Every structure is written in structure tokens, then in C-alpha cells.
């Protein structure tokens, strides 16, 4: 069984670092691939075929909206089973609804309060450690 890689799509390097730190603190040691824009992330995701992975997606990207990436992933038969966790600053109800409608698995609002932020990411880490990624075959 191939190890599950975590694809982190996050334009803010600070956020990416904080997320990574806290995931590691939760004891998750999977490979984390960080992309700072949507184009690069999509290019990687579409060439990965059916490799097991998990996407941590920010919605506010410089070149496109995260929802576009989400839409593309969920419309491709190769990647539609890839779990997508939206992790963003937006807590707009309409935006959240849109993401769930497009097939996102979890939606997390980045809390400004760091304690809450760290807790959320660590819980996500626990969640990652127990979740089962679909068998790519």
C-alpha cells in the first residue's frame, strides 16, 4: 500500500508552515506537498493519476479560487474520491455551502486565535491518522 501523501494548497507560506507544524505535532508523518498557487497544484494533482492522497485546500489563491480546484478534482473520475479538506479564512455560510455542494469532505475555518487554530489542525491530524483513503485500484 502506497503511503498517502498530503497535498497542501496554500498561498500564504506562514499559514502553510503553521499547518504543517501542527499536523506534525499531531503525530502525522505522511509526506506533505506544498503548492502556493492553484495552477501548480492542479498540474500535480492531474498527473498523479490514482495515487492515494489527501488535499488540504485554501480557497483564496492568487491565480484561482479554491472552489475551482475542488470542482475539477470532483469532476475527474480519477480524483473524485480524493478527500478534500477546505481550510480557509472564509466563514461565509454561502461559501461553505458551495464547497460542500461541490463535494468537499470537511470545511474548516482558520481561527485567528492560535490556540483554536492549533487545536483544529491537531484534531484534523487525529482525523487523518484514522481515516481510510480509498483504495486507488
Amino acid at each position, binding site marked *: 500500500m502506497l503511503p498517502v501523501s498530503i497535498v497542501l494548497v496554500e498561498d500564504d507560506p506562514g499559514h502553510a508552515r503553521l499547518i504543517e507544524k501542527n499536523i506534525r505535532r499531531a503525530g502525522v508523518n505522511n509526506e506533505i506537498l506544498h503548492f502556493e498557487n492553484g495552477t501548480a497544484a492542479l498540474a500535480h494533482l492531474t498527473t498523479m493519476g490514482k495515487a492515494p492522497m489527501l488535499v488540504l485546500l485554501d480557497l483564496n489563491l492568487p491565480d484561482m479560487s479554491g472552489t475551482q480546484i475542488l470542482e475539477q478534482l470532483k469532476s475527474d473520475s480519477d480524483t473524485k474520491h480524493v478527500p478534500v479538506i477546505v481550510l480557509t*479564512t472564509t*466563514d461565509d455560510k454561502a461559501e461553505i455551502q458551495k464547497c460542500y455542494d461541490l463535494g468537499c469532505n470537511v470545511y474548516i475555518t482558520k481561527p485567528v486565535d492560535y490556540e483554536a*487554530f*492549533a487545536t483544529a489542525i491537531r484534531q484534523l491530524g487525529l482525523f487523518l491518522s484514522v481515516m481510510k483513503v480509498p483504495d486507488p485500484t
Partner: protein
Amino acid sequence: MNVSTLADGEEPSPIEQSVRSRVLGNASLVLLAIGFAALIVMAIAVTVLTERNREAFDLAATTRKQLSDIARAVELLENAETGQRGFLLTERESYLEPYNDATAQIPGQLDAIVAETSTLPIAGAAADFRATGTAKLAELSSALDLYKSDGRGAATEEVLTDRGKGLMDQARRDAKTMNAFLDKELAVRLDHARKTGEILAAAQLGSTVLVLAVSILTGLGLYRNVTALRQAQAALAETNSNLEDIVASRTQALSQANDEIQKFAYIVSHDLRAPLVNIMGFTTELEAAAKTVGRYVDHRIKASDSDVPREVVEAIGEDVPEAFEFIKTSTSKMDRLISAILRLSREGRRVLAPETLQMRALLETIADTLKHRTDAMDAQIVVQPLPNIVADRLAVEQIFGNILDNAVKYLSPERPGVITVRGTARGALAVYEIEDNGRGIAENDLERVFELFRRAGRQNTQGEGIGLAYVRQLIYRLGGTIALKSTLGQGTTFTLSLPMNGAKSKSEVA
């Protein structure tokens, strides 16, 4: 969009026009009053002149009667003489008839003449005339007596003395004297009557002209008033419809501007949030790291061969924690402010659902939620009967909730608080007043209280300074306005105008 262009280059307002036409109306009223007064004067003058004219004619008629009476007397005397002479000539009784008729009338006629002329300069002549006439009658009578007693010859003898002719001539002369005077008198009186008649005719003509003039003036005045009234009505109607257009277009402009601000606020607050996550996150990371260093320094100090410099101890033990404390307080505050802006912008983008609101019940519910606070402060909220409106329930609840919350928050500790909510329906608007006897707001802070993150007065209560900015935004969204009056130390009154039918105005704008 430049809304002020709508106010430029306008025609005089209907109010100005009505003032102008009222001034015109006053002028024509004065003219009319003068006209009517002149009419009354004319009517009196005509009446008086008519009376004078009648009197003048009466006087002339009196003189005429005197003249005709004298003529009649002379005629009677002549008749009497003719009859008597005829009888003496023919000796037929039938010739005496005119004589008998005349003699029966002559004394009365002569007396009448004397009476009629008693006040005139010819009174003497009249008396003479009577005397002559009476003597003439006696002469005629005596000749007839002679005829009866001595026969025709004696009577003829008597006539031939010319005494009778002399008396008759005398009578004619007397009459002539009187007539001469009376003719002159008649001429004078007729002339006077003619003159008064002319004046009367002129006065009548004048008053006819005046009646016509006043009628025309009245008609013109009425016409002008009616025209002015109609114009004013038309102008008013036009202004009203224009007003609705202006209100609609301004409301639309406002809501567009508002939408843009909402969008802007939303984007800005989001973009501000992202770096804030980093600041807070790495500050906390840094704090953790500093604590690790601090623990190591503590450990080193306790060691026997401690060579930790005092500055390091101070820096790690006091300066660094203090700095973290300030950074964290400030970032928390910044987060709260950004959250508030986000909340505002989110509320601004919420779709409103207008429904009929029982305002009194709604306000009483809000008052109940504040009851534990008002009871503790010995204050009360009085809700009077209020007009109901059609509007978004949540928005209206938040508007009144915020204002009442503020009113309670800023009650004066010096007196028992009373907050009164009252309202009236004014056309298409419901106007609500929330009056308190709290600490009030200084005059130069009145506009400031509506600004975001601004607070007025002593800062002895909690708050971010968002409430009233939020309230004003909600009211604008509902198509209303908010104003406030306040006296520092005495209390504040908020006046809210909301459309009675918020559903209607909303759909019109859209």
C-alpha cells in the same frame, strides 16, 4: 453618481409659487375691497341724488299748480262774466249756466290761491287778486239783481259803467303779476330739477361702470386664483411624482454605494485576517520558544556556576512576556474589529425577508430581554402604542435591540432611568422615537456615535463602537433614516423613520 445634480437648476418650488400667488391674491383682494366700498358710496349717492331730484320736481310741480290755479281762477271769472253778459243779452236762463258754475267755484279757488302763495313774495298780489275777484263777483251779481228788480235796461246801464270791465282788467293784471313771478320761479326750479337729474344720471352711469368694473375685477381675481390654485396643484402633483423618482433613484444609488462598501469591507477584512493568523500563530510559537529559553535560563541561574547576565534575566523574564502580552492584546482587538466588519458586511449582504411586524410586541420582547439589567438599575422601559410595519424581522430587532441596549448601557446613575419608545405613522413612513434620560451625548459627538469603532463620552463601559454604525447601516438598508437629539447630562432621543411597507419600497428599488 452625483446626487446633488438633482437639486440643481430647479424651478421655484410650489411653496414659493403659492406664496407669490397669495401676495397677488392679497393685492386683488385690496382692489376688490376698494371696489365694493366705492359701490356702497355710489349707491348712497344715487339714493340721495334721487331724493333731491324728486324734491326738485315736487317744487316745480307746486309752482306749476299755482300757475294753473291762477289761470283757472281767471278762466272762471271770465266764464262767470261771459255767462252773465250772455244772459243779459239774450235773457235766456240757459246762458246763466256758466255763470252759476263759475260763481260756485270762484271763492274756493281764490282762497286756495291765497293759501298756496302765503309764503311767497306774491302773497300781497294774491290777496289783491282775491279782493278783485270777489269784487268782480259782487259786480256781476249786482247787475243780475238789477235785472231782476229793475229790468234789462237798468242792468245794461250798470254794465255800461265799465266798472265790471275795470275789475276784470284789474284781476287780469293781478294774475299777470303773480304769473310773472311764478314763471320765473318755475324756470329756476325746473332748471334745478334738470341739473339734479343730470347729476343723478351721471351717478347712475358711474355706478353702472363701477358695478361692471368690480364684476370684471372679481371675475379676473377668481379666474386668477383658480388658475393659480390649479397650477399649484399641478406643481404639487409633479413635485410629488418627481420626489418619488428622486427618492427611488437616490435609494438605488445609496444601495449601490452600500453594496460596493460591503464588498470592499468583506474583501479587506478577509485579506486582513490572513496575515493576522500568521501574526497570532507565530507570536504564540515564539512565546513557546521564549518559554523554552526562559526555562533554560532559570535552570542556568539555579546552577552553582551561574554566569547569566542580569540583562538576559530581565529580557527573558520581564521584557519578552510583556511584549507578548501587548502583541496578543492588540492582535485580539484587531481580530475583534475585523470580525465586526465582517459581521457588518455579512449582514449587509443578507437577503431581507419583509413581513408584517407587530412593533409593540416586538419592542416589549426586547425590553423583556433587558429586564434583568433595567431592574438592577432601578430603570424601566416604557413601550407606547406603535405603528406596525412590513420589514425584515431580524434587522428591525437588531436596530431596536442595539438602541435600547445602548440606552440602558448609558443611563445616568444620578436618577432612575426611564426609556420611552413611542411612534406615529406619517404617510408612508413610521416614525419611532426612543427617548432616555441617560447621560446624553455632547453636541460635537452627535455624528461621531454613528461612526464605526468610535465611541463618545466616558469610556467606562465595554464595547467596540460598532452598535450604532451597524444600526445606521441596517436602517439605510431598510430604506429608513435615523437622527438623534441629545443634551449632555439630560438624555438622548433617537428618531427612526422606516417605510411602512418595506416590501414595496424594496421591490421598487430592485
